[in-house]
């Protein structure tokens, strides 16, 4: 067997391996957000997380923008705290009035986090990014008018407005209770 033929066949073998790897990496795995891009972390406290798991997707209007990084118990309040890893493109885009809820995809599907975003004001975005605007813009005045100072969410912030998972037993309990009341 001459060397050239062997080398060609080995080349073929390695090329097949590379193709298989590419197929698996691009076609089979989620090529969306997978830690390859920059990301930032947000936290949210829930009453009950149902069966939410680490790595569950975080969606805005059905589009995945991040994944659940971890779930822990708040040391003082004993409620679950969910750490969310979100694409860095969305840092400082959401206002702190944004709400997050635990939803279920389909009847038997897994649970995921849905974010209903409230878009942060321009000034809040700038201050969040660290570019403090010196001049008073109209938006600032508007905020002052309502006496509310909304901030943009940045790395490490806590989302206050959360809706817990719907637990089937609780739903049934409520339903029966309401029936009895009538």
């Amino acid at each position: 067997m001459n060397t050239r033929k062997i080398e060609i066949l080995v080349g073929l073998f390695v090329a097949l391996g590379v193709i298989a790897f590419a197929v698996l990496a691009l076609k089979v795995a989620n090529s969306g957000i997978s830690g390859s891009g920059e990301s930032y972390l947000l936290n949210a406290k829930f009453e009950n997380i149902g069966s939410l798991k680490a790595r569950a997707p975080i969606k805005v209007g059905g589009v995945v923008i991040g994944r659940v990084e971890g779930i822990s118990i708040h040391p003082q309040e004993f409620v679950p705290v969910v750490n969310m890893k979100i694409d860095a493109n969305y840092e400082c885009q959401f206002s702190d009035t944004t709400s997050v809820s635990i939803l279920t995809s389909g009847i038997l599907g897994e649970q995921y986090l849905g974010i209903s975003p409230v878009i942060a004001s321009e000034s809040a975005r700038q201050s969040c990014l660290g570019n403090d605007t010196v001049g008073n813009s109209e938006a600032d005045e508007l905020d002052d008018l309502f006496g509310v100072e909304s901030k943009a969410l940045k790395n490490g912030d806590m989302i206050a407005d959360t809706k817990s998972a719907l637990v089937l037993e609780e739903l049934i309990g409520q339903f029966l209770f309401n029936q009895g009341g009538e």
Partner: protein
Amino acid sequence: MDFLQKLGHKTLSRFAALGRSTRMLIGALVNIPNPRKGTPLLIRQLYMIGHQSLLIIMVSGLFIGMVLALQGYTVLVGYGAEDSLGPLVALSLLRELGPVVTALLFAGRAGSALTAEIGLMKATEQLSSLEMMAIDPLKRVIAPRFWAGFISMPILALIFSAVAILGAHLVGVDWLGVDSGSFWSIMQAQVSFEKDILNGIIKSFVFALVVTWIALYKGYDCIPTSEGISKATTETVVHSSLAVLGFDFLLTAVMFSG
């Protein structure tokens, strides 16, 4: 007393074997083939070990993927969840079946061949002859084979998984009528590159180390007679299969239990 002596003898000889095999492995690792003389040797072994195992790996992969799809479908369709066939197949392949079945097939195909080849070289005094020619057999014979095995198996496992997923697509989508779009998209949503694919590749590398090491050691340390070689070949397949399954449990516990 006899029993104790037997036990002691067995223990000591096990440790001695472990020592000899570690020495051989270190000899092979230290003697990375040098680029000028070593590369042709390595390429030749990649051909013998990797390319020659390609056919059995691809055919087995295709069938295992098809069977997985068929079995998975009949269970999932009962829950109306046949769209989850994609992730079921992909996850079981990438995390478990790909690395493990490849390693078992590799032990049977390439591992036994390695043991028999080295054993035969020992029996026909080719290894002694190398030594008398002032050429280290660890460097010349063992090292290229070790590296070729170590490189080949992860490649084979990747090919196995890819072919198997295509096989599952063939059965699931083209035959049983699962929607092609949801087959791929749910799979993509569920399979993570680091967690599933990279961990699978790490598993493969560990299995490659274990199987190649056992195969080479059994050949290198065999009794240089026909019975010795046939015994060593059998032992290679048995020991490396057991080692692969054992390590698989350990690795799975470390990687996927958290």
